[in-house]
């Protein structure tokens, strides 16, 4: 069995009485690509909030690479422990250029003193520049380097944000609906990119689009009402009567 990256035990959180996450256990191996699905309100995004330190659990444990993530701040989890998150809506900085978006995302030099002195370190700056241009090529945005991100199309923004995740050099990548609002072609390309990242990265992807889940996932976890309902390969999940009842069936009804 491969090394365990993320180990969650009996995780609980409630918001004014409402149990958003109610005893979740989750094991994710290093290099695994895990899809997380579930109906609206199942607690998918809340689970991501807990892992990244945005919300504080009322009970349970979250260990990443053997270290507890409880009580750690959002910036520290992101930079020190290397957990990067891509939000549902593309969250790029439209007042900055495409290049500058990656420039603020690149791992390292994130204290006030270092952001002030970074401009004087020409060698480091050059290395970062080459690194950023390499990422821009990977996400097909190199031609748009010096354009303000506000001019990008929706799909391009999603790609830019994926590029920012790469620049953070995180080990664990969390994608919250990475293909929302993309065209079929863009969705497929994103899927292939995510598949390429798996192995060298551990990936959690929250998704609604079942075709996309089928394309990427090695293993799927189904959440419902704050609990894990089922876990297994896409084929197993697809046939699971419990899952069909709460989730897949809903889709057919619509």
């Amino acid at each position: 069995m491969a090394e365990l990256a993320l180990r969650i035990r009996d995780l609980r959180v409630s918001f004014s009485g409402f149990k958003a996450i109610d005893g979740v256990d989750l094991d994710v191996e290093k290099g695994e690509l895990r899809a997380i699905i579930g109906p609206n309100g199942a607690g998918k995004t809340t689970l991501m909030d807990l892992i990244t330190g945005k919300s504080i659990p009322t009970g349970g444990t979250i260990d990443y690479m053997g270290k507890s993530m409880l009580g750690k701040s959002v910036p520290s989890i992101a930079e020190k422990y290397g957990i990067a998150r891509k939000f549902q809506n593309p969250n790029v900085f439209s007042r900055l250029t495409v290049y500058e978006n990656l420039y603020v995302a690149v791992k390292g030099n994130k204290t006030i003193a270092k952001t002030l002195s970074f401009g004087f370190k020409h060698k480091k700056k050059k290395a970062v520049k080459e690194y950023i241009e390499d990422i821009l090529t990977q996400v097909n945005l190199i031609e748009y380097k010096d354009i303000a991100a506000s001019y990008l199309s929706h799909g391009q923004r999603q790609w830019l944000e994926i590029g920012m995740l790469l620049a953070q050099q995180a080990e664990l990548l969390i994608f919250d609906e990475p293909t929302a609002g993309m065209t079929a072609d863009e969705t497929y390309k994103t899927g292939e990119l995510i598949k390429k990242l798996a192995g060298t990265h551990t990936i959690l992807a929250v998704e609604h689009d079942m075709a996309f889940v089928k394309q990427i996932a090695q293993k799927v976890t189904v959440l419902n009402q704050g609990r894990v309902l089922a876990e297994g390969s896409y084929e197993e999940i697809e046939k699971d009567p419990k899952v069909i009842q709460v989730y897949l069936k809903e889709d057919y009804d619509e």
Partner: protein
Amino acid sequence: MKKILNIKINYYFDALLFFFLATFPMYSSKFRIEQMSRYLCYVILIFSLDLLWGYSGTLSLGHSVLFGMGGYIYALSYSLKDGEVPAFMKNAGVEEIPDFLNALSDLRTGIFLAIFMPAVFAFLIGLFLFSSKVGGMFFAVITCALITLASLFLNNQSAYTGGANGITGVGRFVFGGQKLSIPQNYYFILLIVLLVYFFCRWLTRSKFGKVIIATSENDQRVKFLGYKTSLFKAFLYAISGMLAGLAGVLFVPVSGIIAPTDITGTLSTILVIALAVGGKGCLTGGALGIILIEWAQSALSESFSNLWQLILGLLVIFIVFFVPEGFMGKVLGWQEKIVMKRKETNNG
């Protein structure tokens, strides 16, 4: 040609404005030079506000307090520098200079504290407000309340602040035993404006500046990139406070006096209006805005007395409705569109 188009257009405005300011004393009366010296101090002040509002998106409505703090500390230091008890203290019954003011009797320490104290004050307030997630309008309201607090303090502590009369009789700077003449003082301030300008340009183009711009759009996202955003913003507020204090230090020798009326909401409001009209987030807009508005205020009140406020009000309404990004923002937007169009035609 392509290169010329790619240089941001506000840099040309900066150069023109600087040329105008550098030649201004050659054809102006002493009265006008002194007036312009005052506006130059406001230019520093508006740069400091633009760093906050234009770049980090947090509006401070009480910026005049930081300016006044610098001005008052300098004025107090100036009146204590001979080691005698100044007249306004004697009137309030203070016979001896109290110990806690001893440090101020050295003018150099006075200047240092006048710049340093507003920075510390701003940093502490910023740290408190930003880490308790107070932002946007709430930040503006709280900073606005600072003005009331400051004027209460000034009136209550009249033994040390001169009360409603303020501290008077502050002379121009002295270099090598020689008091600066009005034009010399003007050029001295202009030099500092230039240094502050380059400092702000450097700061906003640094990685720090980019992080700050990013927080103005989505603070949460920047945290997820690994930055302690509240610390960054508090630090920016401190820099802004430092520059505001510096503006205060330069202002007092020009006007010769600092009084509670100098730090009222009127100044803060004029600053915000000037920045909104001129265009925030590019330094140029604020500088143009404050000089034009101050000049218009003086010219119109000389000939129309009270009517200028009405005209100013109409101007603000017009700008907010039709050019919400301000003059410079509009011009920069046009330039960006032209550049984008050229790129598209080149690619296609």
